[in-house]
């Protein structure tokens, strides 16, 4: 009985370490804590089990979830183009979408996606004061001139994602992500 619980705990711990998405890791962590609390109870340590169940499983998970949520959002504008970025009945799809989604998950942000017309006018991109979107994508060539945005080429030659010139942080971290050592953490 205790050994089974222990092995379950090991499995959940491996789950935490192997998951790429922080949210999934936190859920695994909660499961791990509860399993471990049961294990402590079975090993004759009810006090430790109660401390782990309340502090480790409930409160820590709560704090992690609160800390994870709403870290910030990236505003993405896309031009519909079939293999790159499009919308299906289930949700968004396409190579650039998955790229951005992975990037956002890694930094615990979420994407705010808006569709814009094929040739975006100046007015589409700009609110009163600043540029509206952080990223414009959807199979754009890397030689377009979108004022206020910098092209960021990626592994498909000739294509680029356009990042707002002001937000250097997004540009740099996305650049690092795209260069290819993004797989390092896995």
């Amino acid at each position: 009985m205790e050994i089974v619980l222990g092995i379950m705990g090991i499995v959940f711990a491996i789950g935490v370490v192997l998951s790429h998405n922080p949210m999934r890791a936190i859920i695994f962590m909660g499961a791990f804590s509860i399993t471990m609390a049961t294990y402590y109870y079975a090993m004759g340590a009810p006090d430790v089990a109660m401390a782990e169940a309340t502090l480790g499983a409930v409160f820590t998970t709560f704090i992690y979830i609160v800390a994870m949520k709403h870290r910030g959002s990236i505003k993405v504008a896309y031009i519909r183009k079939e293999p790159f970025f499009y919308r299906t009945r289930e949700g968004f799809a396409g190579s650039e979408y998955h790229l951005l989604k992975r990037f956002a998950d890694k930094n615990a942000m979420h994407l705010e996606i808006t569709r814009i017309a094929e040739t975006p006018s100046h007015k589409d991109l700009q609110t009163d004061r600043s540029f509206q979107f952080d990223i414009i994508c959807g199979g754009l060539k890397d030689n377009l001139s979108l004022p206020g945005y910098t092209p960021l080429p990626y592994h498909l030659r000739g294509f680029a994602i356009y990042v707002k010139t002001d937000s250097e942080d997004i540009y740099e971290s996305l650049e690092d992500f795209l260069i290819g050592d993004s797989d390092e953490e896995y």
Partner: protein
Amino acid sequence: MKNIRLISVILFGMFIVMLLISAETISYIQPDNVTGAVKDTGAINVIAAYYLGYRLFDTLFEILVFTVAVQGVVHLLGHMPTLEQHKPMREKAIIIYTDLIFGASLITGMYIAVAGHISAGGGFVGGIVGATGAVLVFLTMPMEDIEKEFNHTYMAIWEMCILATIFALVLLPIFIGMYPMKNFLPLGTPGHIVSGGIIPIVDTLIGIKVLIGAVTIAQTFIKHRGVF
């Protein structure tokens, strides 16, 4: 960078294997840590007898660790902008239920804290159980109401008062010629709720302190991050 991580993982793995080998050779003889504990401290839960009796010194620091973390979180997050509006759930039914659960969890928590010396549990667990109910209430309250009812300044004052009380209680025996941290009150009959000298008192104080601390942490996090 990847190579360096690989090397460290290999070194760590080697180290773990060596640790496993050396741990397997350790012969274990369980020392007798139970006999006489009830006579010394009056608590039939021997874990509580260690936690709040023999090793009360460690526990004092444990309370301090928790307090330091709470104050650190409040201080560091205090300058952070409140990013998003806290959107409470205002349905009547949910409000009534969460209030009920809050009451129930407070009572459960208090019981767990007070009865720490006769059953499993103790001040820390009790405090956190109480705080979990308070977190549920936060989901249904607008931020202004939360800040009014669970005011940071007041809570900090109470927290510090209780902390000072615990330390004063621990220091008190030196004025009557005993060791500090001695269980100086009458021990009573073991197994009763009123027994164990200062253990239930310290447990209750810890319970209240941890309740306040955990509520403060939860409130600060919710204020600056929102829940949903």
